[in-house]
């Protein structure tokens, strides 16, 4: 064997050896024999999304008047003003109901006038940023566009967050009955100091009414349509999912029938009322009366109250009643 071929041989042998070593190392490094039940998923501990403000004041305010934006402002003022809830430099998420790609007049979604008003109030109180979000039933971008909410938010200085796939993370409601390890729209909540719920009062075929507690359904992802089989348990869990800073229910023209989508002006009534409060259960119990019901008629609400999310007896909170200018 000549010197050249010996060197050649040794070189080849080294490379062949390296191939064997690399294959062996990769094989051993990556080898896995996952056995039966070896990797059970960790069940998540329940965690509350608690954004309640500490400052004391009235818990419920009912404003009446034909102009919903003015009513909303009056209701918040009656509670002590937005400054009570939002401190300078805080970041605020407003969860609106933007569920359907319907124009604002249909009353199926939060009205852009009210959304705009709330965004402005937050900014006026010194909020560093106001983000408006929802995971609607219809196509998200269409919903924010068709309802006019996007335009209202952006012209008022806020920002709309359209949910993205990776915004949903598994979350478990403390003592949740159904919302355990459930994909929740947590992305827009990252870094937020305050959360405000904002929605119209609407009729609903299964839960009787869609009010501020059911509004949090729009934070759910995954196959949430399976939850309708246990809608009342779900509403109870939703009341525990988010402990909001403030909720605002727009009952100016509540949807009395054909909800929650509506589609005709004849589906709407006129109640000229906006209610705001720190107790979503109480707000909804009052809201039910705008639809000709009581809190007891909403099968999900009493369990929510029993679980500690608030009180059905809204009158006990001594609501502040104000008349808003027209």
């Amino acid at each position, binding site marked *: 064997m000549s010197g050249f071929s010996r060197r050649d041989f040794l*070189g080849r042998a080294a490379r*062949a050896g390296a*191939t064997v070593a690399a*294959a062996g190392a990769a094989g051993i490094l*990556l*080898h896995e024999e996952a056995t039966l039940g070896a990797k059970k*998923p960790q069940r998540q501990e329940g965690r509350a999304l608690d954004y309640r403000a500490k400052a004391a004041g009235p818990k419920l305010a009912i404003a009446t008047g034909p102009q919903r934006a003015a009513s909303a402002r009056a209701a918040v003022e009656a509670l002590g003003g937005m400054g009570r809830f939002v401190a300078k430099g805080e970041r605020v998420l407003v969860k609106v109901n933007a569920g359907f790609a319907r124009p604002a007049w249909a009353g199926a979604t939060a009205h852009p006038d009210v959304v705009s008003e709330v965004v402005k109030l937050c900014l006026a109180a010194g909020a560093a940023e106001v983000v408006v979000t929802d995971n609607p039933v219809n196509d998200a971008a269409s919903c924010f566009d068709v309802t006019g909410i996007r335009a209202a938010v952006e012209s008022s200085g806020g920002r709309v967050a359209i949910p993205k*796939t*990776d915004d949903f993370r598994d979350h478990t409601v403390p003592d949740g009955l*159904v919302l355990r390890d459930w994909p929740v729209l947590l992305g827009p909540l990252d870094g937020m100091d305050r959360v405000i719920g904002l929605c119209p009062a609407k009729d609903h075929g299964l839960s009787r009414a869609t009010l501020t507690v059911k509004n949090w359904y729009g934070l759910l992802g995954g196959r949430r349509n399976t939850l309708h089989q246990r809608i009342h348990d779900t509403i109870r869990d939703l009341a525990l999912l988010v402990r909001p800073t403030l909720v605002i229910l727009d009952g100016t023209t509540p949807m009395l029938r054909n909800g929650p989508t509506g589609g005709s002006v004849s589906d709407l009534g006129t109640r000229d009322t906006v209610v705001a409060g720190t107790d979503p259960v109480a707000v909804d119990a009052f809201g039910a009366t705008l639809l000709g019901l009581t809190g007891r008629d909403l099968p999900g609400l009493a369990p929510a109250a029993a679980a500690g999310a608030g009180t059905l007896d809204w009158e006990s909170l001594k609501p502040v009643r104000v008349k808003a200018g027209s």
Partner: protein
Amino acid sequence: MRVIHARRASQSFFLLLFLALAVLTAFGDRPWQMRGWPVGLFLELDPLAALATALATGVVWGGMIWAVLTVAVTALLGRVFCGWVCPFGTLHQAVGWVGRRLGIGPSVRYSPAQSFKYCVLAFLLATAGMDAVLAASRLAHEHPVPALAVLLALGAVAFAAVRRAGTAGARVAVVAGTLALLVAFGGRVLRQDDALTSSVLVGLLDPIPFLTRATDTVVLPLLDRSAGLLFATPRRTHGGWLIGGLLVATLLANLWRTRFWCRFVCPLGALLGIVAHSAPWRIAKACGCSACNRCDGACEGGAEPSRVIRHAECVMCLSCLDGCDDGVMTWRAAPSDGGERALPDVSRRGVVASLGAGMVAAPLLRLGGAISSDWPAGQVRPPGALPEPEFLDRCIRCGQCMRVCPTGTIQPAGPEAGVEALWTPVLNARIGTSGCQPSCVACGRVCPTGAIARFSIDEKLGRGEFEADGPIRVGTAFVDRGRCLPWAFDLPCIVCQETCPTSPKAIRLSDRTVTDADGAGVVLRRPVVDPALCNGCGICEHECPVSGLRAIRVTAENESRSRDRRLLPGASRPASRSG
């Protein structure tokens, strides 16, 4: 004994072993049934299956570690797996031999088209590799300094390769460079997404799963048709015409070109050809060749031993040694005196195009949403199957689960299922002898890649430590009230309820009094499925007297492996049980 006799003996042994193991892949504890035989041996020795699944999952699962042995042998001795072990190669060689004996004379000459198999390999690995690239990219962004060092080292290797090996090195450099760019920027640019992902398609063309599938689902069921030794009831195979037709077509192609598959198509042979590039000992020609070219005429791989030997094509059949009158063909450490070419002769364009096509293929296949929102409800996976994306990252479509299924209810998905699902296992309650048997765990035992996880009877039935998880559900039975006898025709029947194997039964009877043609009252017992109890076994569908389009049919809704397909809001089984 001449060396090719030893090779033939080895080929015969491994072919017989392959067939024997296929026969042994049967559920039961008799000596000719599974009871611990290494029925997945050939699949586990397959480094292409191991590599592709490892790229997609980051895991070399279970017995697939044996593939390292094949790599080691190949790195040291060349493609002896192809020439001495591979049962598919043996069949091809045998058909070619018959062709020559019959004077049909399949061409033995080297063809530049033989480089096609490297393109097939590049395509399949690129298709499987997206997840690995993105994972590496994420890792690189987390640890930029070592990542930069690795990238620089790769660059240096590529540069050295170009300097030393000219065009062949340039090909290596192109691949290394593309990978480096992807790792450097892929994670930045590409978002984790259900379409930007790996798709493991090797099973379509990898010879070991190819032959295993054809043997398990076509050859054995056909051979056993009269004998009835393997299957008490003759076995049927959905879409068997395609699986069998491709087997016959590829075998007949050997009458046209020697070792057709091995030379032109085989991605495993291509991989081993590359692994063998530095084999210390190999075929060589010594001085004194009279240029009779008999070796070229005997060469199974088309490696042109009389000229500049193409080592990547050499399947180590050793026919050149046997046929050399001058005695100059030899197996040795020194390079061939006629010159040699270690790396495959494949064009840079071919490799780049194949890699590019492969990287586009998976997103393209996923774009249709067949594994997300537009999933086919009829695609009921065997119990123990991982969630669909992870399942597809592992399934090599070998057909072992179909072979072992005692009722033959596991069937290969047909062409209608699309490329990604083609020949993957689905439950078909109509075709087998019954649905999925409650006490059977066989499919999980034979799956070589863990696409169907091993599961116990307790796990399947949701007993013992699995009580909180509930049973493994593969789907849900839906009553078609327009076809069901008591619902549609007021005819009594309770067959589905009667045969429902769960306890309590997942089918309850809803009694209703109706008036018959004579005006008499008849109590009808109508079946109603409780989706919380139904595990989708399909026994009801199999037994349903409406024999065409059954009046009760299982679709995959509420299968426990998938959160996205659940039907009920309550607790579901884990979305992922593995890697």
